[in-house]
């Protein structure tokens, strides 16, 4: 359950204005909303499972990052933003679900992983490192914590222009140890930026358990030190996650500043696909999988509310069909033209000059000069 630390009493909950007639339960979410949330959770998991297949077929050029077991915290929190008001989130590597809620498409994700020329970053960046300000998500970088100052600036611009928009930034338990996290949240707190900082506590930063990351008993306790609202929830309960985040989003939109939310969850896969998780105590992963899978829990809740298994099966089928289409499209997509690598470092000049030893030779790729084993594309 959510609990407040520095936050005073929660404001009265508002009904979602999507289709108020159907509202069931305290969350203010309609039945359609709740099925949509299921769709995004299932899409996240199935899309990652497809990526595993592609990875094993060596079609994924780089590493593969999973959010297995964390779909609820990603989807539930992002669902609390208002996509009609221009809200923006900055995801982390386990937030595929958050990006899908904001409108990221499976074909984009697969093309990113496959390093395709028509991927959103045209092959410059890996995995889910991309963004779209129009749809409302901004590309992360690998340096943890750095997106907190950046989102402080994004939300500072909302405040300066009097826009009623909200920003959300995700960090993991590990990133709370960085200087950038500290500087960013402190800056946003002083400026009362409309920012929600989601701390996903999934137990591990790569192989490092929380006990070696911080001596704080709870990560939400850090909110007190920054003078911001603090709240937490069971990150594997998608509705609880939604509710706690929605309160923070409403507060931010009302000009009440920053909230730090700790969502407690569990990372069931390694840091990336190569990680054998030898550091995890025996039985821990199985226990979470068997008793605390966010999709299993949500399916049970939906069934209790009268959602039929046929309705669920129809969503599952739609998800698979979308992923199949996206996979076909991504596989048929071209790799980038090598000299596109010189485009777009600056607005002016738009293209970096070609080096003399590249002139007249389209690229080393054409000559098969690349080291063996680097990537899977053989020209």
């Amino acid at each position, binding site marked *: 359950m959510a609990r407040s630390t520095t936050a005073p009493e929660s404001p009265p909950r508002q009904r979602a204005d999507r289709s108020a007639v159907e509202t069931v339960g305290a969350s203010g979410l309609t039945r359609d909303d709740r099925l949509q949330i299921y769709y995004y959770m299932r899409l996240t998991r199935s899309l990652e499972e497809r990526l595993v297949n592609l990875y094993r077929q060596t079609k994924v050029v780089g590493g593969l990052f999973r959010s297995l077991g964390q779909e609820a915290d990603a989807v539930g929190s992002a669902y609390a933003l208002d996509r009609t008001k221009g809200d923006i989130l900055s995801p982390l590597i386990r937030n595929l679900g958050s990006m899908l809620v904001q409108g990221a498409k499976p074909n984009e994700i697969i093309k990113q992983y496959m390093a395709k020329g028509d991927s959103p970053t045209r092959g410059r960046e890996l995995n889910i490192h*991309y963004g779209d300000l129009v749809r409302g998500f901004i590309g992360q970088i690998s*340096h943890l914590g750095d997106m907190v100052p950046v989102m402080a*600036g*994004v939300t*500072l611009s909302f405040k300066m222009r009097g826009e009623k928009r909200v920003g959300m930034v995700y960090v993991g338990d590990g990133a709370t140890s960085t200087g*950038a996290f500290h500087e960013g949240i402190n*800056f946003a707190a002083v400026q009362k930026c409309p920012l929600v900082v989601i701390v996903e506590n999934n137990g591990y930063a790569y192989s490092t358990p929380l006990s070696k990351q911080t001596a704080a008993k709870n990560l939400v306790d850090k909110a007190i030190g920054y003078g911001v609202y603090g709240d937490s929830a069971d990150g594997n309960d998608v509705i609880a996650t939604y509710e706690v985040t929605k309160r923070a989003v409403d507060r931010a939109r009302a000009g009440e500043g920053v909230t730090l939310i700790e969502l407690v969850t569990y990372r069931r896969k390694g840091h990336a696909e190569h990680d054998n998780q030898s550091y995890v105590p025996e039985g821990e992963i199985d226990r979470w999988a068997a008793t605390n899978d966010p999709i299993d829990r949500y399916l049970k809740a939906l069934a209790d509310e009268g959602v039929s298994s046929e309705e669920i099966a129809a969503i599952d089928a739609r998800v698979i069909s979308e992923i199949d289409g996206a996979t076909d499209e991504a596989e048929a997509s071209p790799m980038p033209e090598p000299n596109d690598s010189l485009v777009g470092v600056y607005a*002016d000049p738009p293209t970096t000059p070609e080096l003399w030893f590249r002139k007249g030779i389209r690229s080393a790729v054409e000559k098969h000069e690349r080291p063996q084993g680097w990537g899977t594309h053989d020209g």
Partner: protein
Amino acid sequence: MAEITYLEAIREALFEEMERDQNVFCLGEDIGAYGGAFKVTEGLQAKFGESRVIDTPISEAAIIGAGAGAAHMGMRPVCEMQFIDFISTGYDMLTNYVATARYRAMLPCPMVVRGPSGGYVRGGPFHSQNPEAAFLHTPGLKIVYPATASDAKGLLKSAIRDEDCVLFFEHKYLYRRIKEEMPSGDVVTPIGKARVAREGKDVSIITYAATVWKSLEAAEQVEKEDGLSVEVLDLRSLLPMDDEAIIATVKKTNRVLIVHEDTRTGGIAGELTARITENAFEWLDAPILRVTAADVPLPYSPPLEDYVLPQTADIVSAIRRLAAY
């Protein structure tokens, strides 16, 4: 029109740009009510208000990171480093986040990071640095380092209007020591263009920032004492560099001395030397020489600082050596 100092020229550029464009705003430590450690931003907050002249916590990474986030949204932040020495605490944000934003994510990042730089002021190791070489190696950033008041004003205007991140280094030795009448109207100095500060035919000095003035002094001296004609090229922009102007002066005098205040190893003189040998090797009549700081942290005490930093006499002897080669 009255003459104004290098510092006042910077302040004028900020005023004029903030008046011209609502999206321009300043953020930094003690820049508001106090007007900044050197009073560069004095009067700005009174004129434009607290929301456009923001006093921040002591957080260079947040100042630069928040600048980047605001820039993505169409703002034009001007981030002040109280001393440019502290830019190193925002190095990650600048090199990993800001510099790559356009390339990796098609995110525009039009912002300026400016601050007092350089030595000759008894500032010691942490209030005298010249960090340009640390950023020259980062595609995606631009670097300017003006030597005159009019260039300070014109380049800051260009930097604020640029679509990418510009590091604007201000030499604090020059802040109140040089004065100049500003050209009338909205004059901008283009980024990427060097300036011939003195015409000459025997030896070329390629330099920037405070050592432009030391080079000019040396040029005067050798003209009087040796009858040598020395050309001084003020780079003004370090990234991008004006290759055309560099090669032109090499071809004109065939003898090149590079002078910079920054330390020697891995300094900008090395990059310049490589460019000249790649593009104009056959025009050289002598080896390229460097006059730079010694490879030590900059010490505080006057005899130590003066020994470490390049002085006019050092430049004079280097010119004589080159001319005699």
